[in-house]
C-alpha cells in the first residue's frame, strides 16, 4: 500500500519532462518577440548615431551615447523627478488606500454601497481620468479655482499645471486618485481575514484602540500591504499618460519623468541613439529593482516560490 504514493510521485516527476517548458513557451514567445527582441535591438541602436526619420544613415559611435546620457544633467534630473513622482504616488495612494480600507471595515450605514463605489476610479480609463482633472485644474474654466475662491482660500486663480511648485503635487494627486482603490481592495480583504477573536482577546488584556492597531491590525495586513506597495510602485514608475497629458513634462522639466524623457528623445527630437541608450539604461534600472525586490522577499520570512 505504501508503495503507491511513492510510485505515483516518481511517475509524475518522470512525465514532467518538457511539459513545464511547453506550457510556458507561447507566453514567452510573445514576450520575447515584442519586448525582448526590441530591447536587444534597442541595445544595439544605443551604440549608433541615427535619426528616426532617416534610419539608413547610421554611424557607429561606440559608447559615446552612454557617455553623453550619463553626463547629461537632464538625465539625472529626470531620474530624480521619477523618484519624486513614484514616492509621492506610492505614499499618497497607500495612505488613501489604507485609510479607506480601515474605514470600510467599520460598520456604518450604506457601507456596502461605499465598498462597491470606491473601486470606480480604478475602472475609469487613464486618459479619461487625466482629462477630467486637466480641465478641473484649468485656471480659467476649471471648478477647482472657483471652489477655492468661494471658500476664500485663494484670491486669484492659480495656474496649477504651469507653476513649478504645484505641477508635481497635482500630477501625484491625480495618479494616486486613480491608483489607490487597488490598495483599498487588497487591504480590506486582509482586514476581513483577521480573526475577530484576536481583537476580543486584546480587549480582555486591556489593549486600547492604538494597541489593537499596532499589535493586531498592522501585522495582519503587512504582507498584503507589501504586495500593494510593489504593485503601485510598478504602475507609478512606468506611467506616462498623466505627466504627458497634463503637463507634457513641464513647466521646464519639473514633471519630466523618465518615461516622458525617453519618449521625447525619440518622437519629438527623433534622436534614436540617445533614446535607445536611455531605454537600455531603464532596462538595467528595472532589472536592478527586480533584484532588490527579490532580496527584500528573501530577507523576509519566505522566498518567492
Amino acid at each position, binding site marked *: 500500500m505504501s508503495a503507491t504514493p511513492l510510485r505515483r510521485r516518481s511517475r509524475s516527476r518522470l512525465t*514532467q519532462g518538457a511539459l513545464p517548458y511547453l506550457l510556458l513557451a507561447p507566453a514567452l514567445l510573445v514576450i520575447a518577440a515584442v519586448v525582448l527582441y526590441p530591447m536587444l535591438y534597442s541595445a544595439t541602436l544605443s551604440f549608433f548615431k541615427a535619426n528616426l526619420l532617416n534610419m539608413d544613415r547610421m554611424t557607429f559611435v561606440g559608447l559615446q551615447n552612454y557617455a553623453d546620457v550619463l553626463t547629461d544633467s537632464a538625465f539625472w534630473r529626470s531620474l530624480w523627478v521619477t523618484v519624486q513622482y513614484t514616492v509621492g504616488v506610492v505614499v499618497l495612494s497607500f495612505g488613501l488606500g489604507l485609510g479607506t480600507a480601515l474605514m470600510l471595515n467599520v460598520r456604518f450605514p450604506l457601507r456596502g454601497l461605499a465598498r462597491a463605489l470606491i473601486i470606480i476610479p480604478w475602472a475609469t480609463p487613464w486618459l479619461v481620468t487625466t482629462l477630467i482633472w486637466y480641465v478641473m485644474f484649468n485656471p480659467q474654466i476649471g471648478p477647482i479655482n472657483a471652489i477655492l475662491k468661494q471658500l476664500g482660500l485663494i484670491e486669484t486663480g492659480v495656474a496649477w499645471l504651469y507653476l513649478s511648485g504645484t505641477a508635481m503635487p497635482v500630477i501625484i494627486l491625480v495618479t494616486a486618485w486613480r491608483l489607490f482603490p487597488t490598495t483599498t481592495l487588497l487591504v480590506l480583504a486582509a482586514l476581513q481575514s483577521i480573526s475577530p477573536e484576536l481583537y476580543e482577546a486584546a480587549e480582555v488584556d486591556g489593549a486600547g484602540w492604538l494597541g489593537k492597531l499596532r499589535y493586531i491590525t498592522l501585522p495582519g495586513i503587512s504582507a498584503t500591504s507589501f504586495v500593494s506597495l510593489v504593485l503601485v510602485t510598478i504602475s507609478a514608475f512606468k506611467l506616462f499618460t498623466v505627466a504627458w497629458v497634463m503637463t507634457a513634462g513641464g513647466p521646464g522639466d519639473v514633471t519630466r519623468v523618465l518615461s516622458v524623457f525617453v519618449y521625447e528623445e525619440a518622437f519629438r527630437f527623433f534622436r534614436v541613439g540617445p533614446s535607445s541608450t536611455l531605454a537600455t539604461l531603464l532596462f538595467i534600472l528595472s532589472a536592478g529593482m527586480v533584484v532588490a525586490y527579490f532580496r527584500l522577499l528573501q530577507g523576509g520570512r519566505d522566498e518567492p516560490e
Partner: protein
Amino acid sequence: MSRSSVSLFAASRKKVDLLQRGLVMFAAFAIGIVIFYPFYWMVMASGLPEGSSLAKTTVLIPGSISLEAYANVLLQKPMLLWTANTLLVTVLSTAFVTPLALLAAYSMSRFRFRGRMAMIFFVLLTQLLPATSVLIPLFLVFRAYGLLNNLLGVTIAYVTFLMPQTIWILWGYLKSIPGDFEESAMVDGCTRFGAFLRVTVPIAIPGIVAAALFAFLESWNQYILAYALTSSTEKWVVSLGLYAFIGEYTVLVEQMMAASVMASIPALAVFVALQRYLRGGLALGGLKG
C-alpha cells in the same frame, strides 16, 4: 460587583463606538466627495450647452442642460468607429492573453523546473519596463513587418504588455488551489494536463475572470502603444481620439467631457458586470511568494 463593572465598561465602549462611527462617517463623506466629484463634474460639463463653460465656470448646478456636445461629438468625430476599434482590439487581446497566461501560470505554480526563477525574474522585469522605452524598436520592427497602422499590430503589442500582469494574477490564484485534486484525477486515469483542464480550470474560474477583467480594463486604458503604432484616424482607438481634443485650437470642454463619458461607459459596464469576481478572484500568492 463584577457585573456592574462589566456593564459600565460596556457603556463607555458603546460611546467610543458611536464617536468612532461618527468620525468614520464624516471622513467617509469627505473622501467620498473627493473621489466622486470629478465624475459628477465630467457628466455635468458634458451636458452643458456648448461654449458655456468658457463663459462661466459651473461648479455644481448647471444653468441649462443640453445634449449638443454628445450630438456634435457623434456627428463631427468618428467616435463610434474609435469605440468599435477599441472594443475589437480589447476583446481580441483579452481573448489571446488569458489562455496563454493561464498555461504559463499553471506551469509556474505546479512544476519545479530549471530556469523557473529566471522566468519569474523575466516576467517581473517586463512588467516594470515603461512602454515608452521600447517604442522605437517596436515601431521599427512593426514597420518592417507591415504591422503599422494596423489593428492586428496594436493587438499584438497589447497582448505582450498585458502578459506579465495576467500571469501574476493567475499564478497567485492557481497557487491557492491545492494540487491534490489534480493528483486524484490522475490516479483516476487523467493525464497531467487533462487533470488541470478538467479539475483545476473549473475551480479557477473566478481567478480567470478577474485576470481577464484586469486585461480588458488595461487594454481599454492603453494609449501610448496605439499612439506610436497607428497614424490614420480611422485606425485610432478611443483614447487617441480623446487626446486629440487637447491639441485642438480651442479646447471644447463640453465635447471633451461628452467623449470622455462615452469612452468610460464600456469599461465601466464590463467592470460592473464582472465586479463580483474581483474580490474572490484576486489571490495574493503571486507577488507574496
